[in-house]
């Protein structure tokens, strides 16, 4: 079997009074999108900086794309694209100058590729970076992370500061990267930033991984609001008995309810009538996410 894109074992990083990481076992498979979630200060950035060899582990092992970030750093970083949450660069240069320079450090990136990404994000490369808004500055960061189509994208809270339209564009870029076989490791403190793209999410807390879940499974388990409009009034009791439904209210031809788990029984029940419209809200994984927090916290106290 191929090496995982990222693997850490018992990774510990302590600095000064801060604990950093307290034994992180992380595994990210090749060509998956991995959401790395946790509150601020949980160790997300510490992990990412260890992967890039910006800081060195106190103990434990790190392998990225099968390589040691310390010993094979140059070869490794050639294959990585990195974006920090707050993209800080010398503001006196234009976006074009910076991207050309960073491209040259990687052995050259075609100008057409840079222009294509900038156009896509509606970014003016001719302006000095200090004159750009926070959102536009972050776009420069997005371009430099994606421009060389790296095997592994390491994105630290990537969409902070991007407006909703650009967040959608960013989601599309991540999906394309995944389709092209690239691995994406993306940290965030909110589920909504990663739930549209991530295959799996790992939750980090106090420097260790608390749980790893497939987003698909989370979604299945999630409770969502459903609204169905039929072409005629329907009897409420036909639906109150359907598995997984709660809060069922029927108002003439309009049914609204909460669905917990799979939608199949509801669909079967509804299919006996003529359905005019069907609305299922995107499940709020944030809720589930926090349920986990609370649970692990309780477990932690009990243990």
């Amino acid at each position, binding site marked *: 079997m191929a090496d995982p894109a990222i693997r850490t074992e018992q990774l510990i990083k302590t*600095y000064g009074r801060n604990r950093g990481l307290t034994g992180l076992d992380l595994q990210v498979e090749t060509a998956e999108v991995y959401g790395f979630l946790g509150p601020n200060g949980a160790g997300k*950035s510490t992990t990412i*900086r260890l992967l*890039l*060899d*910006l*800081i*060195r582990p106190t103990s434990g092992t790190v392998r990225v794309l099968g390589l040691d970030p310390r010993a094979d*750093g*140059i*070869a490794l*970083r*050639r294959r*990585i694209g*990195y974006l*920090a949450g*707050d*993209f*800080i*660069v*010398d503001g*006196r*240069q234009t976006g074009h*100058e910076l991207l*050309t*320079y*960073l491209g*040259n*450090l*990687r*052995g050259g990136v075609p100008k057409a590729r840079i222009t294509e990404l900038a156009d896509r994000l509606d970014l003016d490369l001719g302006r000095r970076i200090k004159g750009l808004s926070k959102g536009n500055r972050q776009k420069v960061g997005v371009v*430099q992370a994606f421009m060389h189509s790296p095997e592994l994208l390491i994105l630290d809270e990537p969409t902070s500061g991007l407006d909703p339209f650009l967040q959608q564009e960013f989601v599309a870029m991540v999906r394309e990267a995944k389709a092209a076989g690239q691995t994406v490791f993306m940290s965030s403190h909110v589920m909504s930033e990663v739930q549209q793209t991530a295959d799996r999410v790992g939750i980090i807390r106090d420097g260790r991984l608390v749980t790893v879940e497939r987003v698909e499974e989370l979604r299945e388990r999630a409770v969502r609001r459903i609204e169905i409009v039929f072409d005629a009034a329907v009897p409420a009791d036909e639906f109150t008995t359907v598995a997984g439904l709660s809060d069922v209210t029927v108002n003439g031809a309009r049914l609204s309810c909460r669905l917990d788990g799979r939608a199949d029984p509801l669909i079967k029940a509804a299919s006996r009538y003529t359905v005019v419209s069907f609305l299922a809200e995107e499940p709020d994984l944030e809720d589930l996410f926090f349920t986990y927090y609370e649970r692990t916290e309780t477990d932690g106290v009990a243990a």
Partner: protein
Amino acid sequence: MLLRNPFTKALRDNRRSMLGWAVSIAAVGTMYAAFWPTMQTPEMADALAAYPEGMLEALNFEDVTSPAGYLGSAVYGLLIPLLVAVFGIAAGARTIAGDEEAGSLDLLLAHPVSRARAALQRFAALLVGLVVTGALLWLALVAIRGPAEFTAVGVGALAAMTLHLVLFGTAFAALAYGVGAATGSRATALGVGAAVAVLGYLANAVLPQVDALAWARDISPFHWYLAGDPLVNGVQVGGVLLLAGFAAVCVAAGTWRFTRRDIAV
């Protein structure tokens, strides 16, 4: 193309500030050198004779009756080396520590460049700035040699003095670079650089006035820079080696530590 690597990028990023320093230092040096004809009046000689000798010595203002003596004191004795040291310390502290504190070093080091290479290339760009400064000052002094009546000082002697000056600046740039690279703290780099400059100056010009402290002179970069009077006697191998060796040790130690430590957030 100046966007090729960290060396050319550093040249490009700092071109204005480096050129500003070079032009200013050359201008100040030229201005003082141009005063030479006015210094030759008997009134001026009397005025200087009235100063206590220790004070003149403290100002590196010794023999001002010959052109070489005057240039060695007024131009190369204190003001110009001090400006060059300040330039070197400020730029050296910025090379790694300044960028790290600003938070912009992460991006460079997340690219396929080794830390040592990135750091040394940036330091090399700073050396270019110091060499340009020296060259500009040398050209300016060569140009006014005739009009300012100090043709007794040869072009070669000016070049030797300039070499010493550039190495003197390099020593302080290397010190601030090394401390900054090792600690990541710009303030520490500036502080150590300034402290060594002040103590080095005192050790060369003031402390030796007490006989028991004459040894202090030997460990002063100012002494390495001025000893043997390069403006009269040409390049002084001992001083050159001490300045260059000091710089090399600072650069090597700072870079070594930089490749082994955590980069601050």
